[in-house]
């Protein structure tokens, strides 16, 4: 296991390097001049030239890439061009919000999605199954931003129960601001619980027809014991994968949901800084998103092998 992890972490480096080239290319090739964006339309060509010099934009692209990469390797992420704050501080502010949203949403999604999937599997091809399947297809088809808008419409505009956006005053204690989380969490949880319940359902159906479940039933175990101890435990193995993958995605920021609710997380930071041509922020956050995504993938693969001894890691690619 340790050798496997070491190898995977080592393989992370070339992938990250290639990703960094792509990220840098996105920035270097994007239209618009950041110097002009920073100074506004009033600036004279001379001022813009000076600013370009200061930002290092006059150097050839490979040189700029090399400089940026060395800076990133030294964890020197630079300064935001739109508000002059260090990029690391901006990310440091946004990351806890995203982490909180991801953890709570996934928790809620698992709490609802797992039982739904198990219920559907135990009642396969009956009415209850059909209802769960209908909920799932809705959850997978509704765009998050539409669900978000509908929630805002109901709970903010009509009933005036919940704030439509933001996360409240940052210096208030968190427990006084928890109600800001309700709608973003509901939005993310709904689509994820559909994913989870679909996976749990199909994994349970597979497992329930396995020989060891038949044996457990044949030796007279109570149905509950069969379901919980024999079926569920094994059905969880493939489900771990999908939970991990969804978690990795969410940690990179739920771009759409964060935008709809003006939630101050990583996803909104990326979108806003792209809109402002704030390239140091875009570069750093994208690198972070990729890093998190890749690391969660490794953890998922490793835990998969840990849970299912039949999976051999050393040879797998």
């Amino acid at each position, binding site marked *: 296991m340790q050798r496997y992890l070491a190898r995977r972490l080592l393989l992370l480096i070339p992938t990250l390097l*290639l*990703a960094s080239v792509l990220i840098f290319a996105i920035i270097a090739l994007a239209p618009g001049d950041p110097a002009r964006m920073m100074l506004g339309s009033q600036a004279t060509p001379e001022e813009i030239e000076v600013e370009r010099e200061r930002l290092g934009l006059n150097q050839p692209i490979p040189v700029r890439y090399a400089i940026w990469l060395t800076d990133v390797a030294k964890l020197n992420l630079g300064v935001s061009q739109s508000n002059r704050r260090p990029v690391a501080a901006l990310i440091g502010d946004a990351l806890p919000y995203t982490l909180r949203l991801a953890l709570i949403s996934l928790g809620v999604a698992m709490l609802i999605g797992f039982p739904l999937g198990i219920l559907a599997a135990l009642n396969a091809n009956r009415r209850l199954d059909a209802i769960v399947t209908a909920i799932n297809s809705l959850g997978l088809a509704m765009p998050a931003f*539409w669900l978000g*808008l509908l929630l805002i*419409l109901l709970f903010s505009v009509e009933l005036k129960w919940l704030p439509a956006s933001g996360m409240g005053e940052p210096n208030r204690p968190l427990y006084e601001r928890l109600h800001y989380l309700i709608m973003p969490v509901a939005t993310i949880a709904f689509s994820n619980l559909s994913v989870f319940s*679909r996976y749990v359902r199909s994994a349970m159906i597979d497992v329930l027809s396995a020989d060891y479940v038949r044996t457990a039933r044949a030796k007279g175990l109570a149905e509950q014991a069969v379901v919980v101890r024999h079926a569920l435990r094994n059905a969880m193995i493939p489900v771990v994968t999908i939970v991990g993958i969804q978690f990795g995605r969410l940690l990179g920021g739920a*771009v*759409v949901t964060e935008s709809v609710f003006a939630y101050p997380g990583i996803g909104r930071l990326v979108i806003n800084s792209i809109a402002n041509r704030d390239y140091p922020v875009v570069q750093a956050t*994208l690198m972070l998103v990729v890093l998190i995504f890749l690391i969660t993938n490794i953890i998922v693969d490793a835990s998969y092998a840990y849970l299912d001894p039949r999976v051999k890691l050393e040879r797998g690619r």
Partner: protein
Amino acid sequence: MTAGGPGDPSIGVAASATSTSAVTTSAEPGRAAGPVGSPILGTARRLTRNRKGIVGVGFLALLLAVAIFGRFLVPYDPNEVHVTDQLAPPSSTYWLGTDELGRDVFSRLITAAWPAMQAGVLAVSLAGLVGSLTGLAAGYFGGWLDAVIGRVWDTLLAFPAIFLAIGIVTILGPGQFSGVLAIAIINMPVSSRLVRAVTVSARSTDYVEAARTLGCSDWRVMTAHILPNCIAPLIVQLAIAVPEAILVEATLSFLGLGAPLPAPTWGNMLGSAQTYLARSWTYALFPGFAITLTVIGLNFLADALQDALDPRRIRAGSATA
């Protein structure tokens, strides 16, 4: 997005059972019922045998009709501004109400079916085409070509799809074309890997060996003998990708990165509806319905295609992951 990844090599073996019959393309209708009949007719028959398939096919036909002809039949020009009727509720004049400029929401909704279908069908076909070519080449020739192609897809897969799409659109500048290209690119790695996996397992079969011995060119072996094996799993994978692509397009245009205004898309309609939520609740309702219904209908079709084309599913017919 996870389906057909590198951990799913069995797909190729299972799929070859259906597609070896691809040699007999012109069968009389009577023979289509048998296992050796036309694969297209056979698939169509299996597709329409379950309810999901009928709903899915019917929905696709309706959607294509709306996307292609709807633009010419709408009651108003989708960009016609009615200054006195801003954010009007649904009425007999404006069936689904009007937007913030007094434009007819129904006309815009119907017109927006075209960019949505472009994003779905065009982008995914492009992904399928590039994916097949690169996957075939990587799987058939192996070696450094395989390594390079694999590396490229690894890099793209290192990004969560929506971030990659946003990044590509940033390079190309917002617009319908960049959106289509971005959606195509985020779908290429999965198609390519799928085709590569099937190609690798087909490469060592006797009939491929025989074709090579008979002097077929690499191109002919790839297209005539290996590619038919890939078609069934590829179609399933692309069918799953179409509704996802439509969601991504809606997301991009919701974020203001899609087709430029005033051209209507379902996503940018919802984007501006958000600003006027307090003044018109119907405006935020209908474009969302359009997206959701489209995606549900196309998901039905994808499910049914999966059942019809995957021999492992014809037997089980239950577990869908």
